[in-house]
């Protein structure tokens, strides 16, 4: 159940299954302890220069060495680390020693992939998938050693840190651009059959056009058997450049006969705006209740295309008699650093005003102002928020949007409190093509200071928790229904009760009643 649940928001993961394979074209430098040491040195420099609350350099050096629990051994020598060469020497010793100690556990194998792929959410998915694949325990490699050192350093940095190799960063950027190249599938591991299976084929994507079906098991890719391959291997086989062919042999679970899907990899845009329920594979119904003028939009993620999709949704609603809007941010999970995209989305609803302020490393402040061109002008609005334990700590995007709309009195917020840290992450390239790191380079201040709301915390105007008795089940049912809606397998299912949405509708009905009251005579 939990796996399905986590896949509910895995649109981005699907993109990885067939993301443009830059790796295949570019030979990567072999990873040696020296390369790792130099890379870490560069990262520490960048953190010192660009982090908004940089930890002391020595603390970072110590944190790296602590990864093996042997910091005391190096503690006295840390003070002498004043240039890169000394540091490289020290780490080479560390590596030699690490090699001799225990083998790496499966959980570390999972952690390794953190360095490899986009967001933590995607990594968690991959880590889980790898665990499912039950790969055998393997000896320590330089890659794993690097991941351990990075993980250890990450914990010592406020807001954390993420490292991307140049290749991984390109994938991350493709995900962020919503211009993924691939076959348009979402996959998971079928542990019984020990094969990857299609969870979903995106409308308009090559796999769907070639006849791919939900549940299909991937038997072969380009003539190679996939038995016993982990998800990452399957993904590697599916990757390739836009316009290149890929052939997949699939079969339904339990079935013998196979089908061959001939596909050409192409750009697959993923929708980040959805309606209440699907009308058809391509169309949404925005109405919650028949005859009601209240429209419903949900943002499964906030990305660079969201503002564009909102404009499209507004056009589709024209002439349908809508006058108010529920914006559901409850299942919104965005990979990577999306505060820029969040600003564009908040701006899409605001006629004017300050979105929020960003305070940078040198204390300079930037005030982000709405540019005046907005959608759904004058409609009463409710934003739905709900704290999810699943949510990434670094993913501020939904919180930023909710905060901006609340502070400008553009929307009432209904649900449970969300948001924590106010640190904003930014991608900083490392020198000499060593890759890119994401780290906190600024902090954000809300447009209106509110009592009891520290940092970015958004306190709803109407607190509605899922009822204590049935909370878990209700919420789970609702999330699953929403997930089914997003993958269109369940067009006719009746939505379960949703106390937060019910409150939102009530708030909007009152607002509409107030505005449609007969105007006073002049």
């Amino acid at each position: 159940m939990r796996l399905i649940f986590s896949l509910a928001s895995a649109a981005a993961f699907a993109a990885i299954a067939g993301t443009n394979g830059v790796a295949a074209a570019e030979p990567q430098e072999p990873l040696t302890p020296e390369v790792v040491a130099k890379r870490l040195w560069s990262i520490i420099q960048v953190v010192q220069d660009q982090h908004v609350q940089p930890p002391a350099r020595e603390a970072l050096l110590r944190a790296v060495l602590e990864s093996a629990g042997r910091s005391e051994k190096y503690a006295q020598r840390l003070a002498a680390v004043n240039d890169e060469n000394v540091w490289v020497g020290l780490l080479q010793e560390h590596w030699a020693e690490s090699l001799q100690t225990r083998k790496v556990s499966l959980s570390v194998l999972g952690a390794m992939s953190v360095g490899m792929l986009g967001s933590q959410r995607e990594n968690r998915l991959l880590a889980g998938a790898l665990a499912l694949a039950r790969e055998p325990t393997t000896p320590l490699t330089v890659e794993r050693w690097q991941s351990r050192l990075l993980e250890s350093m990450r914990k010592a940095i406020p807001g954390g840190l993420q490292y991307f190799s140049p290749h991984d960063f390109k994938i991350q950027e493709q995900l962020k651009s919503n211009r993924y190249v691939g076959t348009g599938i979402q996959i998971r591991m079928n542990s019984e059959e020990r094969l990857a299976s299609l969870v979903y084929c995106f409308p308009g994507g090559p796999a769907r056009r070639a006849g791919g079906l939900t549940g299909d098991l991937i038997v072969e890719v380009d003539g190679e058997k996939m038995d016993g391959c982990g998800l990452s291997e399957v993904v590697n086989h599916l990757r390739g450049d836009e316009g290149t062919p890929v052939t997949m042999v699939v079969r339904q679970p339990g079935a013998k006969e196979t089908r061959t899907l001939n596909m050409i990899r192409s750009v697959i845009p993923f929708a980040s705006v959805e309606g209440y329920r699907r009308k058809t594979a391509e169309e949404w119904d925005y109405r919650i209740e028949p005859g009601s003028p209240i429209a419903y939009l949900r943002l499964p993620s906030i990305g660079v295309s969201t503002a564009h999709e909102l404009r499209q949704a507004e056009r589709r609603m024209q002439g349908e008699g809508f006058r108010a809007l529920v914006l559901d941010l409850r299942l919104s999970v965005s990979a990577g650093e999306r505060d820029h995209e969040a600003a564009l989305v908040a701006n899409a609803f605001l006629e004017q005003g300050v979105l929020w302020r960003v305070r940078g490393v040198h204390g300079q402040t930037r005030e982000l102002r709405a540019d005046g061109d907005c959608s759904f002008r004058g409609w009463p609005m409710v934003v739905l928020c709900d704290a999810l334990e699943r949510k990434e700590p670094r993913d501020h995007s939904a919180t930023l949007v909710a905060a901006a709309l609340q502070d400008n009195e553009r929307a009432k917020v209904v649900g449970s409190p969300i948001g924590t840290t106010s640190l904003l992450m930014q991608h900083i390239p490392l020198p000499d093509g060593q890759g890119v790191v994401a780290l906190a380079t600024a902090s954000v201040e809300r447009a209106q200071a509110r009592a009891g709301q520290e940092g970015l915390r958004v306190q709803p105007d109407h607190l509605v928790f899922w009822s204590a008795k049935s909370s878990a089940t209700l919420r789970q049912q609702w999330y699953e229904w929403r997930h089914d809606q997003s993958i269109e397998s369940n067009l006719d299912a009746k939505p379960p009760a949703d106390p937060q949405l019910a409150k939102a509708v009530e708030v909007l009905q009152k607002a509409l009643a107030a505005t449609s009251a007969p105007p006073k005579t002049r």
Partner: protein
Amino acid sequence: MRLACCLLVGVLVVSFSLATNTNQPTTRLRRPVALALSDDGSHLYVANRDSASISIIDTQKQALTGEVRIGRRLVDIAVPDSRHLLGVDEVAGAVLLFSRRDADVRIIDALQVGQSPVSVRTLPDGSRCTVALLWPRRLAIVELQPQLQLVKTIDLPFAPRMQLPVQNGTKLIVTDSFGGQLAVVDVERGAVESVRSLPAHNIRGLCLSADTKQVLLAHQHVSSLAHTTRDDIHWGNLLTNTLRALPLATLLAPDEDALRGESVHPLGDVDRGAGDPAGLALGPDGTLLVTIGGTGELLMRRKSEEAWRRIAVGRRPTAVAASPDGRWAYVANTFADSVSIVDLKKGAVHQEISLGPRPKLSAAERGEELFYDARRSLENWFSCQSCHTDGHSNGRLTDNLGDGSFGAPKRALSLLGVKDTVPWAWNGGIPDLESQIRKSVQTTMHGKPLTDAQVEDLAAYLRTLEPPPALGVARGEKLDVDRGREVFRKLQCATCHIPPTYTSPKTYAVGLVDELGNKLFNPPSLRGISQGGPYFHDGRAATLEEVFTRHKHQLNGELSARGLADLLAFVRSL
């Protein structure tokens, strides 16, 4: 008769050649920019800007039947009744009245109305016309009979371009030439009733909807929140090309929010932008027609259809008119010196009529064509014109890499007079115009790199752009600037703003800091400064007054009210 003509236009004697009428067009650059159809639809009159001529097309024969050359720079044309034509000459500052009988067009009267007239509209009763004067920021109301006579001028708070008479000509909607302002003018009272700021710039289309309940505007909008990255351009976050419909009733009620009840129709789409909407017309059956100047297309949407049909026409189509029976659309292709006749039933070009042979273009003329070409940008979303509207500025902030990084949006700088203002960019980081052009095309527009020859052509075009006249000068006011010049001297303004260009090549810390901590700025030239605004790199001062009253720009002590007034009078005269 010819003698009479010369006498009538005597005031313009320097600028006018004799009216000639010929069926054999000569070789010259025409640059057609405006169209007017005779009321019966039998003849199409084309205003050619550069040749200052009117080409006449017989719409039944679909053939060119004549050309009349008059004046210096003909920029708009209108049909007041069944026997006359009106035109405006931007350089001569004149309204021209022509008699017409089919292909026989003769000038019968001319009147100087003020500097830089850019558009002319006839009021519904046909007895008067209104003329928008760009740099004087003014409207002129002119009576046509018994002879052209200036009846009234109305000052506006912005440089006007498009005009739309409504409510039987008692009200006039006027829009900004560069930014997004819109004014409703009471024609009878001669007063501005209301001024609205729209999320818009480069408004080039203005007409009423088929039911006459909405005002339609074709324009662009640029967001200061977006970055000039491929992603933000591709998804329409940076710049949108738009047809906006505003309810007329709310627009006419001065206290109402003009945008309430609006509807917005994007032009173009991701992967295929429609940079620079340039002309707008409505067919008798409600078919919407928008020309896209930057891509050379006519966008058409029938009343029953949801999607726009895109029809390739000639280069830089700037004006469009529909035949009274709704069968044809006529499109003026400014850079092709031609008119496309589009079959609206088929949604395809029926014929392209050449207005005459073109000479070999000069570097500056080729550069002008590049300046207005949206195909120089990623997916055709915008051109140089989009932000540096007609070489001036849209007054909007854009977050581009002009200052080296994102995070500190900067106001688009005017390019009028740019040849004298080395170095370029707000931080003065670009030492030559050619480098600035390359950088803008590559990092802001994300277009293919220009060839050396293209860069030279664009630079040659930019070097032809002169600073605008000061507002007071353009209005012909008697300016007393001696005291102000003395204040300017005493405050040592010329340390940075050195005459005659009133700028200098260095950068200075003047107490301004951008969002990224940059403190050094290259002083913009003060020539034509009264035609700019808002002011400073981030537009923080809405007016020139605010530069001193709110932001105390380089004032060491208090400036007396009298001193400020004198200083402003001087600066506004530059």
